[in-house]
C-alpha cells in the first residue's frame, strides 16, 4: 500500500513537467509581442528593445525555459507585465474567490445530486425517478454560459432580486457576498449535480441487485440500513471518480461563469491575461490550475484505494 502510494506520488513529477513544458511552449507561440502590447502602439523602437531585454525575451528559448523552471521550483512565478505585480501574489489574491464558488457548487452538488440518485435507484421507474432523470439529462447537456445568461435575465433583469455582477464586498456584510454568489453558484452547480444524480443512480442500481444485498434483505435487515450502510458503501467508487472529474472541471466552468458574472477569480484573470498577452501571468495561472488538477487526481486515486481495497494501482494497467 505504502509502496503503491509512493509510486503514484512519483508519477506526478513527469506529468507536472509535461504541464509546465506544454504551457511554456504554448505561451511562446501566442502571436504578438508582449513588449509592444505593454508599451502601446506609439512606443519608440528603443523603448521596445529595452523592455524586450528586460523581460528576457532576447534570450534563447532554451534559456528562457530553464530560467522559468528553475524559478518555479523556488516558488517564483515571475512578474506580471500588465499588473506590474508578482504573479504569485495575483494568483493568491484571485484563487480564494474561485475556490469559494467552485467548492460551494461541488458541495451543493453532492448534497443534492447524491440523495436524488439514491432515491431514484430505490424507487426505480416511479415518476420521481423519471422526472429527476430527465432533469439530470437536461442538466448534463446544459451550456452553462447560456444558463448563466438566462438566470441573469430572470432574476436580475426581470425580477430584480439578485445582483448579476461582481462579488460584492464583505464591508457591506456577509449577506452582500452571499447574494452575489447565488447566481454564479447555481450556474456552476448544475452540471455536477446532474452528473452525481446519474452516476449515483446507476451505481446504486448495480449494487442493489447484487446477491449479497438480496441475502441481507432475506436476513431481515431494515431497508434503510441496507441502502445507506451497505449498498451506498459499495456504490461509492464510481461516485468518487466522478467527484474528481467534477472538481477538476469546476475550474473550467469557473472560466465561463466568472466571465458572465464578472467574478474576480482565476477565470477572469486568465481571460484578461490572454487578451493582454501577459506571458508570465498566463503561464503562472495555467500551471497553477493544471497542478491543482494533477493533485486532485492524486487525492482521488488515494481515496479510491482506501474505499475500494480491490483496486491495486500496481495492477491497474487499464487506462480507464
Amino acid at each position, binding site marked *: 500500500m505504502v509502496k503503491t502510494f509512493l509510486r503514484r506520488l512519483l508519477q506526478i513529477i*513527469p*506529468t507536472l*513537467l*509535461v*504541464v509546465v*513544458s*506544454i504551457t511554456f511552449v*504554448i*505561451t511562446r*507561440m*501566442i*502571436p504578438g509581442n508582449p513588449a509592444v502590447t505593454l508599451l502601446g502602439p506609439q512606443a519608440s523602437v528603443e523603448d521596445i528593445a529595452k523592455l524586450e531585454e528586460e523581460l528576457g525575451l532576447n534570450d534563447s528559448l532554451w534559456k528562457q525555459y530553464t530560467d522559468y523552471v528553475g524559478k518555479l521550483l523556488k516558488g517564483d512565478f515571475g512578474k506580471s507585465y500588465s499588473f506590474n505585480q508578482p504573479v504569485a501574489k495575483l494568483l493568491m489574491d484571485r484563487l480564494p474567490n474561485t475556490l469559494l464558488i467552485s467548492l460551494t457548487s461541488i458541495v451543493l452538488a453532492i448534497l443534492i445530486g447524491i440523495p436524488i440518485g439514491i432515491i431514484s435507484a430505490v424507487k426505480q421507474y416511479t415518476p420521481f425517478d423519471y422526472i429527476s432523470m430527465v432533469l439530470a*439529462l*437536461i442538466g*448534463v*447537456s*446544459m*451550456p452553462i*454560459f*447560456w444558463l448563466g*445568461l*438566462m438566470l*441573469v*435575465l430572470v432574476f436580475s*433583469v426581470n425580477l430584480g432580486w439578485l445582483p448579476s455582477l461582481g462579488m460584492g464586498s464583505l464591508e457591506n456584510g456577509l449577506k452582500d457576498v452571499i447574494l452575489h454568489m447565488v447566481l454564479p453558484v447555481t450556474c456552476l452547480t448544475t452540471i455536477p449535480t446532474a452528473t452525481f444524480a446519474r452516476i449515483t443512480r*446507476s451505481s446504486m*442500481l*448495480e449494487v442493489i441487485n447484487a446477491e449479497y444485498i438480496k441475502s441481507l434483505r432475506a436476513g431481515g435487515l431494515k431497508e434503510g440500513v441496507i441502502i445507506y450502510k451497505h449498498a451506498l458503501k459499495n456504490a461509492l467508487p464510481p461516485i468518487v471518480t466522478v467527484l474528481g472529474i467534477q472538481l*477538476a*472541471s469546476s*475550474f*473550467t466552468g469557473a*472560466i*465561463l461563469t466568472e*466571465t*458572465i458574472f464578472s467574478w474576480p477569480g482565476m477565470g477572469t484573470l*486568465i*481571460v484578461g491575461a*490572454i487578451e493582454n498577452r501577459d506571458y508570465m501571468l*498566463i503561464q503562472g495561472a*495555467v500551471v497553477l*490550475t*493544471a*497542478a491543482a*488538477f*494533477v493533485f486532485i*487526481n492524486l487525492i482521488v486515486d488515494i481515496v479510491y484505494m482506501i474505499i475500494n481495497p480491490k483496486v491495486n494501482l500496481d495492477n491497474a*494497467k*487499464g*487506462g*480507464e
Partner: protein
Amino acid sequence: MTEKKDLLGIEAQVEMLNKERKSNNAWNKLKRNKTAMFGLIIICIMVFMVITADIISPYDPNALDLGNAYSKPGVNGHIFGTDEFGRDLLSRIIYGSRISILVAVGATLVAGAIGLVLGLISGYSGGIIDSILMRIMDGMMAFPFVLLAILLMTILGSGAVNVVLAIGIANVPIFARIVRGQVLVVKNEEYCNAVRVLGASNFRLLFGHILPNIISPVIVQATLSTAGSIISEAALSFLGLGISPPTASWGNILRGGKDYLNTAPHIAMISGFFILITVLGFNLLGDGIRDVLDPKMKK
C-alpha cells in the same frame, strides 16, 4: 424444449434463429430504445437544417435591415424576430447550425483519428513508448479543457478550421486512453495470438483484427464528444475566440445576444435553446448506443 425443436424441423429452426439474430442486431436494439430514438430524431432534424439551409432559410442570414432591429419573434414575418442589425434570427440559427454541427463533428473526427492511432500504438507497443505517450496525455488532460482550447485558439487565430483543430486536439487524450485500455485487454486474447502465429504483420493485426473489436466504446465516446464539442465551440465563440461574425454560429449569436438581455432577450434565449436541444440529442443517442453495444453498462 428439445421436443419442440424436433417438431419444428430444420428449416423452421433456421428461420427462427435468423429472426432472433435480426432482432438482436445493434440497429434493431437501438430502434427499441425510445430515448435514443428521440435523440436520433433531434439529430436528423438538425442535419436536415444543415443540408437544406440555403433552401429553407426565409431570409439572407447576413442581410442588414437596421430599421427592423430587435424585432420581437413573430413581428413583420420574422418568426424568431431579428437581432441588433435587423438580421432574421431564424435564418441565422439555420445557417448557424451548419457551423456549429460541422465544427463539432469535424473536431470529433480529428480527436478520434489522432486518439485512435496514439492509443493503438501506446497499448500495443507498451514499454517506454507507452509510458511517454501516456504521460503526455496525462499532462494534456491536466489542463482544464476550455483553457487548453482557449490557448490553442489564441495561437491559431479565429476561424472555423482552427476551432475544429483546437477542440479536436484538446479531445485527443480521452480517445487515446479509451483505445489504449481496450487494446491492453484485447491484445493477449487467443484470436490475437492465433493471427500472430499465422504470421500477420503488426499493422494487419492492429487494424484488421484488434480495431474492429475495440471500436464500440470509441463510437460511444465519439457521440458524446460531439455533444461536448458543440458546447465547446459555443463556449469559444461566446468568449469571442471562436467563429467571428458576421458568419453565424450558435455561440456567436448567443454572444451577440448577451449585450441585449434588456431590450431583446429572445436573441440569447433562442440561440442557447438550440445548443441545449442539439447537445441533448447527441447525449441521448450516445447513452442509447452504449446500452446497446455494451450490455454490461446497462442499468
